[in-house]
């Protein structure tokens, strides 16, 4: 392994950008376009899906059956992205998503993975001490709730379909969606009224 790889990261990036631009492999314009495309994905997309699922049983069923198809049906672009698996929280089971090997994250519907999701502490602890991990967010589940941890090791990306909080009768989709965060859709928190 060459010592060149040990160059300062900013310096390495600058050098790589220079070479790739000169070789017409990655130009500045292409980088700008890729960033703009990525910025369109955010947790608001996933939140829309969750809110729709809370209101529409047919959409909920589709989401659990084929997450990418459900996302596409709401105009969330999923072409070329990995399959999306959706994990339904119930009265008795709470789901938690982790990637112990790296940081696999449902970017198409949640945007960039958060710092904590990529951290050594989260990746090491989630599968073994999920209650302790949830406690970092002051999340306490009802007594008797079983926690299912899903380690994303291959081609699927996983998101949680949280339970609809009480006290939201009559709320429209946008208002329901505003309750749902990226943390809820990974499972370290649950949606609650503000």
């Amino acid at each position, binding site marked *: 392994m060459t010592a060149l790889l040990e160059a300062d990261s900013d310096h390495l990036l600058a050098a790589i950008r220079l070479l790739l631009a000169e070789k017409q492999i990655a130009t500045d314009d292409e980088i700008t376009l890729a960033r703009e495309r990525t910025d369109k994905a955010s947790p608001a997309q996933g939140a829309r899906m969750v809110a729709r699922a809370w209101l529409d049983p047919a959409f909920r069923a589709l989401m659990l059956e084929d997450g990418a198809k459900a996302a596409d049906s709401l105009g969330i672009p999923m072409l070329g992205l990995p399959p999306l698996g959706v994990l339904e929280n119930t009265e008795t089971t709470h789901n938690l998503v982790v990637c112990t090997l790296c940081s696999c994250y449902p970017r198409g519907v949640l945007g960039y993975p958060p710092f904590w999701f990529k951290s050594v502490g989260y990746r090491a602890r989630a599968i073994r001490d999920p209650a302790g991990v949830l406690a*970092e967010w002051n999340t306490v589940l009802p007594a008797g709730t079983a926690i299912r941890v899903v380690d994303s090791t291959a081609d699927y990306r996983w998101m949680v379909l949280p339970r609809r909080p009480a006290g939201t009768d009559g709320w429209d989709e946008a208002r329901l969606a505003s309750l749902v965060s990226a943390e809820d859709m990974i499972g370290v928190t649950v949606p609650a009224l503000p």
Partner: protein
Amino acid sequence: MSEMSETPRAMHDIGGVPRFLCEGIDTEPHTLTEFDRTVDALRQILGGKKVMSVDELRRGIEAIPEAEYLRLSYYQRWIRSIADNLLARGVITEAELQAALARC
């Protein structure tokens, strides 16, 4: 009890590993820097053009010596892996990279 401490696990394969179970978790949002977003975009372009797959990216990250792996930030690991893979695939040469580093 040694638990998993004697398994020949790869250094990035950290699920449940005792040494990291005492790590706190920084739950604060960290804004992505220009560096982060640029490296991320570069990876997408290289993936889209079949120059480097996400699997190759991961392999390159996993090849980083453990001390460096733990020291580098997430996207710093990425740019190091990208450079490693571009060299390995012959997309760039060491001489070219050396010269580019001197120019930047």
